[in-house]
């Protein structure tokens, strides 16, 4: 690299001056980018922290002169926000565990067993990903009603749980697991169950973690399907609850902003700490789960 720089700029001084200028330019660009991307989030947080009576007066201040947690108190007292939060955690957890279970078993079977029609099956699984969800909505909704799952957690999570892309992702990962290892275990008399539990799962741990995270984010942010399934506010997950806040408080966004802040913070924290797993998942599936 040094050799290259010297080749373009034979004068050492010139090179150094240019690189310093580029550095400053890049730094300025970076600050602009950071402002554009972080400021809206900052605005959301401070809007939720403005004291109630002063929301119109203080709206002009970019750095607020007074902060208050009052909005958050109202959020929990006047709206069932706590219930929504718990609903979101329960539903997201259930969805992610169920989805990961289905994708792991399916992916393993497709990757490590040879059987007739395997490729056909694999294609059929991938094709089902291409069916637009909007085409299925009405039939799915009718089905949920028939199964007696309307207005239940099961109704919200079960129909979404088997993700074709998730199965594809697990299969790709499982392909890399060494067959020798599995065969050695079989020779030693391990049952298929033991092999799956003690060899396959530990080896696939990174992929499982990635999938789990992506599924969690997916459901946490999902609005459409829960919006259809639930009518009773006591069953809402957060996304549907926040939609209700937006509809109810059209002129005053403090509650909406407080609700949004609390719903976004867990995702951002998760994203920040687990970005490597998330990136790995995205690189493998190309466009992410869903």
């Amino acid at each position: 690299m040094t050799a290259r720089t010297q080749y373009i700029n034979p004068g050492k001084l010139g090179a150094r001056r240019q690189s310093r200028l580029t550095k400053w330019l890049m730094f300025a660009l970076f600050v602009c980018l950071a402002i554009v991307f972080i400021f809206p989030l900052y605005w959301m947080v401070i809007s939720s922290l403005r004291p109630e009576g002063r929301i119109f007066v203080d709206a002009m201040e970019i750095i607020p002169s007074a902060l208050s947690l009052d909005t958050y108190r109202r959020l929990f007292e006047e709206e069932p926000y706590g219930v929504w939060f718990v609903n979101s955690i329960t539903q997201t957890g259930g969805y992610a565990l169920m989805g990961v279970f289905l994708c792991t078993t399916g992916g393993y079977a497709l990757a490590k067993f040879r059987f007739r029609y395997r490729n056909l099956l694999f294609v059929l699984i991938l094709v089902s990903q291409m069916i637009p969800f909007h085409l299925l909505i009405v039939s799915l909704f009718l089905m949920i009603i028939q199964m007696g799952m309307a207005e239940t957690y099961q109704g919200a999570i079960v129909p979404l749980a088997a993700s074709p892309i998730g199965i594809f992702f697990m299969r790709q990962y499982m392909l890399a697991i060494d067959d020798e290892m599995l065969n050695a275990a079989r020779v030693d008399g391990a049952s298929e169950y033991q092999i799956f539990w003690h060899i396959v799962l530990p080896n696939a741990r990174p992929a499982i973690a990635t999938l789990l995270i992506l599924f969690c984010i997916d459901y946490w942010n999902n609005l459409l399907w829960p919006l259809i399934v639930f009518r009773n506010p006591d069953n809402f997950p957060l996304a549907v609850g926040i939609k209700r806040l937006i509809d109810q408080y059209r002129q005053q966004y403090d509650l909406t902003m407080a609700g949004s802040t609390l719903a976004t913070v867990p995702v951002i924290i998760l994203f920040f700490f687990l970005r490597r797993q998330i990136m790995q998942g995205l690189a493998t599936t190309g466009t992410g789960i869903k």
Partner: protein
Amino acid sequence: MLTGAKRGKLWLRIRRNWQLYALLFLPLVWLVVFRYAPMYGAQIAFRDYSPAFGIEGSPWVGLANFERFFNSYYFKPVIVNTLIISFYSLLAGFPIPIILALSVNQVKMRLFRNSVQMITYAPHFISTVVIVGMLFQFLHPRVGFIASLANLFGMTPPNLMGDPGAFAHIFVWSGVWQEMGFGAIIYLAVLSTIDPALHEAAVVDGASRLQRIRYIDIPGLLPTAMVLLVLSTGRVLEVAFEKVYLMQSPLNLGVAEVINTYVYRVGLLSPILDFSYSTAIGLLKGVVGLLLLITVNYAARRLTDNGLW
């Protein structure tokens, strides 16, 4: 005898591999029940569905539901709105991630690269509801940031969310804000696979930075870009439902009603739920989308030798 032995073998195979079938069983049942079976239910597009008769008991009406949509007052505005919003999104949303990836790729400092990537793709993980809530608040004529900015310069703050003319711009550019970093990930991955020797040779030959981008990086990205372009053109009728739906208000419905929200409104929201009608529109959209995908892919193949298949 032979068949008996064969049958015995088959039985033995199933018994020996029952674990395999156990593993496969659940995911398959799931996909059949929740992905393929609803397709069967989509036949109500050709029937006059009523809950009393069920899917198979409702009378066939042929293409009546489709004709109703074509003759409907909403047909034209809904199609026009869908096309405007999605082509605008494509026009802005397609090149920007490529530009971002090309510029980030120029930077050699690891810390800088990683922070830019992290900051730009974090918004992807924010829920659509939250994004729209933020838009409402941010652009609000009294409490929003736009309001404070306008006041600072002594102007009357505009009511952007209520302005039908601003709807498409707000929709598209907030989408670009949210997705550009995420979209750049895949291009950066492709750029990292380009052989550095190419760049070194170009530098020796005296190529400038821009020339190297033009003649090395962009051709390297082209196949991926074409595939993504074909895919997004195939989805041109699938305007992001959640976001449009949340951004709609009586003030902007004239420009904000798209196919997906219309399907939802007539099928699941209106006082008389019209399942058949909304399924028909959904089916029509799916078929047109598929045809578009095939056409665009064909064109892409002919023009650039790159495509989905």
